[in-house]
């Protein structure tokens, strides 16, 4: 039995990889905040807040997910493609500037320290239902989770590859939770900028592909054009890093 009969095609594998890598970045960011809350104010409110956030995300998907099937496919491809392109190119630009040393790298240890300090300043935990801990943990999971949902729906819906996208994101969640439980500290070893660079390239490739499909512009090689687009964005981004490294620094982004 060949891979195609299992539904394992080039686009579905690429979608699963894109969703996995993008989700890892977001889950690591959420984990950093939840760990800070748990360490400073107690694990019970930290985990209840995170659980409530996860339930809200599942409810949002359950309510709004089925509506996607009502949208005509070419409109879905255009809108999702545009959002994916903006999201992917924003990540890619920032990752390029970080790779070139123009802006500072994302530092999970520094974020953990800052969040820990901020939670300590707000005083001692307020009983079993510490609202500061609950809300901080809830917010982190909802905000980072919304990004994961957007990525899964965006890379999955336009090409009917929601299952591989969800599998990719689910695997990332499983890995981050397991590693988080085991190491019990921020996952500073995750090469976040390399991941964002790669994901930016992948999402930009998917985005421009869906825009072309939605607008009725034919791609040479049809679905296989995605591979060429990903390679093209990778070359452009590496070229941009070279150009930025040769220029004196002028812009400092947050």
């Amino acid at each position: 039995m060949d891979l195609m009969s299992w539904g394992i095609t080039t686009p579905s594998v690429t979608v699963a990889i894109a969703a996995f890598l993008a989700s890892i970045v977001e889950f690591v960011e959420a984990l950093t905040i939840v760990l800070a809350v748990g360490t400073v104010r107690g694990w019970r409110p930290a985990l209840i807040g995170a659980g409530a956030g996860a339930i809200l995300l599942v409810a949002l998907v359950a309510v709004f997910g089925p509506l996607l099937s009502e949208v005509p496919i070419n409109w879905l491809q255009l809108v999702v493609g545009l959002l994916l392109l903006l999201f992917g190119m924003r990540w890619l630009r920032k990752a390029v500037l970080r790779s070139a040393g123009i802006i500072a790298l994302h530092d999970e240890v520094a974020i953990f320290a800052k969040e820990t300090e901020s939670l300590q300043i707000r005083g001692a935990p307020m009983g079993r239902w510490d609202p500061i801990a609950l809300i901080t943990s809830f917010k982190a999971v909802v905000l980072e989770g919304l990004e994961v949902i957007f990525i899964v729906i965006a890379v999955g819906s336009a090409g009917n590859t929601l299952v591989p996208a969800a599998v990719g994101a689910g695997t990332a969640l499983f890995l981050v939770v397991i590693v988080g439980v085991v190491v019990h500290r921020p996952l500073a070893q995750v090469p976040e900028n390399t991941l964002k660079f790669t994901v930016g390239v992948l999402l930009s490739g998917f985005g421009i592909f869906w825009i072309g499909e939605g607008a009725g512009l034919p791609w040479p090689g049809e679905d296989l054009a995605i591979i060429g687009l990903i390679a093209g964005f990778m070359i452009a981004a590496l070229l941009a890093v070279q150009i930025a490294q040769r220029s004196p620094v002028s812009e400092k982004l947050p």
Partner: protein
Amino acid sequence: MNWINAALGELFALFVDNVRFTVAILAWIAFGTLELPKLSINMGWDAPLLFLGCAIILVISVWRAAKP
């Protein structure tokens, strides 16, 4: 309400970081999907040109951010 505003702000920030960069992408996509097909260039080039424009916007935006 503050929390909702913060959430909407986060949602906006998912797609927009540098306004000039975002506007350039949107303008190119609008031109590429609406006007490019009317210019009677070979139809097979329209989609690759759409990509090429985005790649050039990325390189120029990074160059502008890095120059003194």
